[in-house]
């Protein structure tokens, strides 16, 4: 196996410090500001904010606050499969709505 499946067991990684989390929090607050700003420029701009900025914010929380960056491929896979499944549900629903 080229990469350990269970990163937290046999290959403990260095824990991130206070500064890392403070930077991530600052980025999240700035992105919230961007989202609010985009919503001021009308409906379509607000929807683009929802589609582009919100996933980045969620990714920051998952990747840093929830430590996914420091986990092995198994935990990352569990989350990705779930999100992928949800995405398929959304695609099926909108394709159904579009051709009705």
């Amino acid at each position, binding site marked *: 196996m080229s990469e350990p499946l269970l990163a*937290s067991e046999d290959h403990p990684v260095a824990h991130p410090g206070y500064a890392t989390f403070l930077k991530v929090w600052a980025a999240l607050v700035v992105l919230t500001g961007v989202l*609010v700003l985009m919503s001021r420029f009308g409906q379509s701009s*607000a929807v683009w*904010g929802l589609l582009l*900025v919100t996933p980045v914010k969620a990714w920051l*929380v998952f990747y840093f606050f929830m430590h996914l960056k420091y986990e092995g491929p198994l*935990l990352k896979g*569990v989350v990705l499969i779930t*999100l992928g499944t949800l995405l398929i549900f959304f695609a099926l629903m909108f394709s159904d709505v579009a051709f009705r």
Partner: protein
Amino acid sequence: MTASSHAPAVHRDDFAAKLGMWLFLVTEMVLFGGLFLAYSYMRSQYPGDFHRAGTELNATLGVTNTVVLLTSSLTVALSIVAVQRGERRRALAFLGTTLGLGVVFLTIKSIEWAAKFHHGLYPGAAHLATLPHGEQVFFGLYFTMTGLHGLHVIAGLGVLAYMFRKVARGEIGPERPLLLENAGLYWHLVDVIWIFLLPLFYLAA
């Protein structure tokens, strides 16, 4: 823990515990995912009604609550760093801040809900029944999704208060941070869900 020949061997598997927590969290993601799906469908059916109903919500309170929840997530993450470094008092201060911010979130939420009730904008209200169908659906989804999220905040506060007690008693420390880490994962997920609720209801409706 002192090693005694009579002490039973305590089985401990941190990775399994973390995997179990994540498996629970993905069921939560699917639970809210279904509601996001319902929102998306209804919004595509009633775009005008959703827009009008969305202007009834107070975006300032929504954004304020976002910053409150993001900051509470930060302090949970910082408390875990403090526990890993053996800085118990600092960890308790961070956790206490999280608990306080959670209460602030719920207080702001209840002020918002009270205003909606005051204006007759709740499921079953006579006034809401006179509004277009799409607006009724909007407020139904609003109360369902922010209500379910609020229940998660209350549950998270209960779990974190329990963790506070365990850290204070030294039952969670540098050798055993996992319980707090798993509780933190739950709190962060509650934060992620709110990150999506903000634009859906307050900004982009």
